[in-house]
C-alpha cells in the first residue's frame, strides 16, 4: 500500500513552509529547538498531506495542546488551522455507540450463540489488543474497534511515507551541499566534465 503522488507533493510543500516559518538557520536556533521545529513540521505536513481522517484530526489536536506549538501551527497552517481545529461533529456519538456495541454483542451472543461464537471471539480478541493501539494512533482513544483498525492501516502507510520523504530530503540536501562545495574549490572539474 502506497501513498499517492499528491501526498508526496503536499508533504514537501508543507515541509517547506515549516522550514521558512521556523527560519531553520544556525544563528537563530539551538539544536533541540530546530529538531522540535522539524519534527513538528513533519507531523503537520503528514496530517495536511493526508487530509481529513480521524487520526489526522487527532494528531493536529494533540500537537496544538502544547502551548508553545500553537503560534507555529497557526503560522504554517494559515486558514487551514481553524478548519482542522473544528471539533469532529460525530465525536459525541462514539461513547454512546460503545454501549450499543456491547448491548448488541450480548444480544448477538444470546440469539446466535452457535453460529456467531467465532465472530464474537474474534471481536473480543481484537478489542483486547486494541488498547495499545489506542495510545499509539492519534485520536485513538475515541475510536471503536473497527474504525481503529481502519485508521491504523491508514496511519501506518502515512508514517512510512513520512519517514521515506524525510530521508529523501536529507539525501537531497546533503547532495546539494556536496555539489556547492566541489564547485567552489575545484573549478577545473567543470572544464573536464564539459570536455567529456
Amino acid at each position: 500500500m502506497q501513498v499517492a503522488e499528491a501526498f508526496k507533493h503536499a508533504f514537501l510543500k508543507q515541509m517547506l513552509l515549516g522550514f521558512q516559518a521556523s527560519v531553520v538557520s544556525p544563528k537563530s536556533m539551538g539544536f533541540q529547538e530546530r529538531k522540535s521545529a522539524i519534527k513538528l513540521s513533519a507531523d503537520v505536513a503528514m496530517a495536511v498531506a493526508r487530509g481529513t481522517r480521524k487520526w489526522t484530526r487527532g494528531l493536529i489536536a494533540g500537537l496544538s495542546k502544547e502551548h508553545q506549538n500553537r503560534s507555529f501551527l497557526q503560522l504554517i497552517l494559515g486558514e487551514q488551522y481553524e478548519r482542522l481545529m473544528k471539533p469532529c461533529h460525530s465525536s459525541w456519538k462514539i461513547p454512546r455507540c460503545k454501549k450499543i456495541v456491547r448491548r448488541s454483542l450480548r444480544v448477538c451472543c444470546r440469539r446466535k450463540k452457535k453460529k456467531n461464537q467465532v465472530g464474537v471471539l474474534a471481536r473480543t480478541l481484537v478489542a483486547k489488543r486494541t488498547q495499545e493501539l489506542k495510545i499509539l494512533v492519534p485520536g485513538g482513544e475515541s475510536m471503536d474497534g473497527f474504525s481503529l483498525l481502519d485508521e491504523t492501516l491508514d496511519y501506518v502507510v502515512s508514517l512510512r511515507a513520512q519517514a521515506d520523504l524525510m530521508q529523501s530530503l536529507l539525501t537531497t540536501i546533503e547532495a546539494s551541499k556536496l555539489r556547492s562545495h566541489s564547485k567552489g574549490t575545484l573549478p577545473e572539474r567543470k572544464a573536464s566534465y564539459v570536455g567529456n
Partner: protein
Amino acid sequence: MSSRRPRSWQSSSASRITDEQINDLVSKLQAVLPEARIRRSDRVSAAKVLQETCNYIRSLHREVDDLSERLSELLASTESSSAQAAVIRSLLM
C-alpha cells in the same frame, strides 16, 4: 426516546460490521508490515498482527525522531535558502 434515533445510526454498530470486514482489515495490516516481522505469505492470528503493528508504529516513530535529528544537524551547517532550494528540487523530482 430511542425510537426517535435514526435507524441508520443505531445499526452502525458491531452487528453491521462483519467478520469478513475485520479479517480484510487485518490482512491488509499484515501486508504493510515489513518482511522481517511477519512472513507475509503465512496467515497469522489477528492478535499477532496487531502486536506487530504496535511494534512497527513505535519503530517508525523512532525513525522519524532520528531523521529529525539528522536534518537538524545538517541544517545547522546549511544556509536556510539552500535548504529551501533543496526541498523545491525534491518537489520537482
